[in-house]
């Protein structure tokens, strides 16, 4: 088996990924938990580690008229201190983990980890974010909800790396993130909802919802969201039971150590209502 690898550039990383199979590690806050073993022993990883946290090519934040682009290794802490980052994403990040983890955990890592309860992923989906994926001889862009394919599964191939996240540079009239967890810090969500709405003259022009911890991945549906487009905010507010009915098939949670399916379903429905109550 080849050893762990500490590359000096992104190019070197991609060349090496083409040659050998690695487990990519950025901040390490997920990888070291997932593969943890006894104290004073090394994590039991399946593949040698490819260290990328130090690569400056993955630490950029830029903005143009079309989108905000965030390098995969930008930490939550850096996102919180950047003027480029949309408020709703900051509101989400402040609910993730604790300062010690936010100082080192990365946005790319949260996406690659593909947890069905990933808070930042909910908000990125609601903001229509795209993931940019690179290998030494290819570059592709995928919608984040398509990039994540199931519990802890993504479309990332062994020779690829998440390069960046692109968020469309558009203002939202309402953009909210609601999280329900067992503790205010360091809690994995029992249920979460990211919701974004735009309206012109009281008529909905954009409506996006993404639910965490209610299915095998963060759940979203462009077709259900699309049913809200063109309605007036008034119509939305007086047809809440019908809207909840429309979203219901999307919300299929399970019982686990954090919560029950019944509780999660009820709370997810209540969160939709909470968002509708908030808009005007």
């Amino acid at each position, binding site marked *: 088996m080849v*050893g*762990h690898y*500490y590359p000096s550039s992104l190019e070197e990383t991609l060349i090496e990924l083409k040659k050998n199979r690695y487990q990519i*590690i950025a*901040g*390490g*806050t997920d*990888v*070291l*938990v997932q593969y*943890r073993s006894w*104290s*004073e022993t*090394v*994590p039991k*990883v399946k593949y040698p*580690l490819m*260290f990328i*946290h*130090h690569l400056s090519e993955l630490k950029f934040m830029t903005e143009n008229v079309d989108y905000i682009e965030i390098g995969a290794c930008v930490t939550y*802490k850096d996102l919180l201190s950047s003027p480029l980052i949309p408020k709703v994403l900051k509101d989400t990040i*402040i609910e993730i*983990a*604790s*300062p*010690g*983890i936010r*100082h*080192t955990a990365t946005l790319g890592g949260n996406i690659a980890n593909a947890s069905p309860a990933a808070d930042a992923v909910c908000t990125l989906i609601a903001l229509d974010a795209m993931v940019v994926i690179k290998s030494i001889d290819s570059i592709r862009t995928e919608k984040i909800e398509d990039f994540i394919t199931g519990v802890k599964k993504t479309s990332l191939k062994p020779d690829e790396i998440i390069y960046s996240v692109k968020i469309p540079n558009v203002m939202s009239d309402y953009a909210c993130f609601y999280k329900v967890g067992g503790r*205010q*810090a*360091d809690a994995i969500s029992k249920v979460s909802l990211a919701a974004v709405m735009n309206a012109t003259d009281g008529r909905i022009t954009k409506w996006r919802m993404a639910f965490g911890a209610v299915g095998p991945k963060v759940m979203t549906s462009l077709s259900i969201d699309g049913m809200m487009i063109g309605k007036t905010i008034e119509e939305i507010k007086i047809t809440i039971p019908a809207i909840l009915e429309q979203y219901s098939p999307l919300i299929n949670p399970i019982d686990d150590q954090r919560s029950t399916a019944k509780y999660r379903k009820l709370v997810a429905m209540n969160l939709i209502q909470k968002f509708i109550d908030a808009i005007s």
Partner: protein
Amino acid sequence: MIIKFTLNHQAVTIDTDPSRRLLDVLRVDFNLVGVKEGCGEGECGACSVLINHQVVNSCLVPVGNVHNKDVLTIEGYKLTPKYKIIETAFVDAGAVQCGFCTPGMVMATESLLYQNPHPSDLEIKIALSGNLCRCTGYNMIIEAVKLAVERGEGLW
């Protein structure tokens, strides 16, 4: 892998497996046992140390990630005037009982005050939100931080 970093104000070089937890390297290789292991998964903050002046959970940092970085543990911080202010404030406020969480609490406090010398109560709570204490009930710890802010005016 050869890993070079600054540890408690001194340049150090080690040759070790970069996947080892920083926590283990500090405790085993350097005998810095003020860095505690509580949960081992980032929930308790007992293993808090500073990397480049920001608090992190050393149980979740592969030591490869500290190459060319600056690491400060309670043992290195203890030699500074700021530490003395925090130590006295913790003692005076009754913020220490069993002491297991205390090094982590102190490092999280330094990380906060370095970034924000005049935090609000909410900012203090957020800064300490990754550190669990099973003895004091937190109020005394929050009081201790406020006392340190007051007494350390101008130091941070």
